[in-house]
């Protein structure tokens, strides 16, 4: 006993060292599966608060620029809308019923506006934090978009903050999308390096499209509604196995200046997710998410 105490006394800092290292590695390896990790991430209220303060100071200085961009964007949209409405009327001669239907489809999604409090661009697996959480109706697995296009998917929620996996996350971001007006499906992925470009994989060989075509979400992922902008095709490559195309897409979202986003909360998603979960459970398959 005396020996043991003496031993502890002499080596207590090594024991402490081992303890701290063990704790660090537990955090390192269990982060993704560890729900309590809300405390050890930027979803933590205190850390989120500090970041929010900082973001509000920063956004104060970029307000003017943002406003300008939004105004031009708004103008452009407005014009496009009026043009489309005119074309639509000319083409169908019966303007009302379908439009109403479209609007109703959109109103099934509840949009929760949020501000980005911190985001990263330069790592392999970037993350982003927004200032809305469970208390505002945000749940893990919801889509996040902004005025310019798709942003990412919510991942960890605390009461007032949420960590989002943006498109710019090499290991975890997979968003299914389609080429506008052509209908071929692919998966949006990112491999690091350039924050302005991502890749769409698994476009079939027989697909016909051209550079400059727009890519948007296809609404099959049960996270995003169909038609949220992703980007424009910048280059076309063959996939490594030669069985499909791989598209380099210029993302329409500028992640470097991103401040205002919306979380897309679809009431029917929860139901669909539950169904999927039930199906997975009954199949006892280890389908990775």
């Amino acid at each position: 006993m005396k020996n043991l105490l003496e031993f502890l006394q002499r080596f207590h800092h090594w024991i402490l060292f081992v303890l701290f290292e063990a704790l660090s590695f537990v955090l390192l390896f269990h982060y993704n599966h560890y729900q309590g990790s809300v405390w050890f991430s930027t979803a933590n209220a205190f850390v989120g608060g500090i970041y929010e303060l900082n973001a509000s100071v920063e956004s104060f200085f970029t307000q003017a620029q943002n406003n300008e961009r939004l105004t031009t964007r708004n103008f452009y949209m407005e014009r496009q809308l009026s043009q489309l409405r005119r074309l639509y009327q000319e083409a169908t001669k019966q303007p009302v019923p379908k439009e109403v239907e479209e609007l109703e489809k959109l109103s099934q999604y509840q949009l929760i506006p949020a501000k980005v409090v911190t985001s990263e661009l330069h790592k392999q697996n970037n993350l982003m934090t927004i200032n809305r959480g469970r208390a505002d109706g945000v749940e893990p697995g919801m889509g996040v978009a902004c005025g310019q296009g798709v942003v990412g998917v919510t991942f960890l929620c605390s009461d007032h903050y949420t960590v989002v996996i943006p498109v710019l996350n090499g290991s975890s971001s997979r968003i299914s999308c389609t080429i506008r007006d052509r209908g071929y499906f692919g998966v949006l992925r990112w491999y690091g390096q350039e924050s302005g470009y991502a890749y769409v994989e698994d476009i079939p060989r027989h697909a016909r499209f051209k550079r400059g075509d727009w890519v948007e979400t296809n609404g099959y992922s049960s996270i995003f509604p169909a038609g949220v902008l992703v980007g424009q095709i910048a280059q076309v490559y063959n996939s490594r196995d030669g069985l499909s195309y791989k598209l380099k897409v210029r993302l329409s979202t500028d992640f470097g200046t991103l401040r205002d986003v919306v979380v897309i909360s679809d009431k029917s998603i929860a139901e669909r997710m539950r169904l999927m979960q039930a199906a997975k459970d009954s199949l006892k398959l280890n389908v990775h998410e």
Partner: protein
Amino acid sequence: MTIDLLKRFLLFIVFVLAQALVFGRIHLFHYATPLLYVYFVTMFPRNYPKWAVLTWGFVMGLLVDIFYNTPGVASASLTLIAAVQPYFFSLFVSRDAVESLEPSLLNLGPIKYSYYIVTLVMLYSLLFYTLEMFSFVNFMEWGMCVLGSGMITLLLIFTFEIARSRA
């Protein structure tokens, strides 16, 4: 003792906030990110209790991790640096030196201090990026990050040290 603790605590907060809000967001040439908080751990004087150095290091690392969503990466590497620091520093001081000699440019002289700080910072940079990437697939990127971040951190530390020795 209390005053020293208080000072260190304030310094600690300054380092964490500076890292979280300023330095951690700098990515010079895509690779070089200042990891200035290592400086805090290298500043402990001779005969400072080892358990205290470890605790400061671990908590500092943990906070940096929380701010940057890199769970365990900074805390694991900074704890190691904190464990090594007392032993490593004792190599640079003679036995009859002042009891609580602080490692600084002024106290050690430029050559000894450079050896001391370059080794610790590069070791930290190496550990940090190895744990963060956890693979050597992007060997070039890994190497560039280790070198770039190490160098920019050292540049900042030397700037501070020179300013301190002039003051």
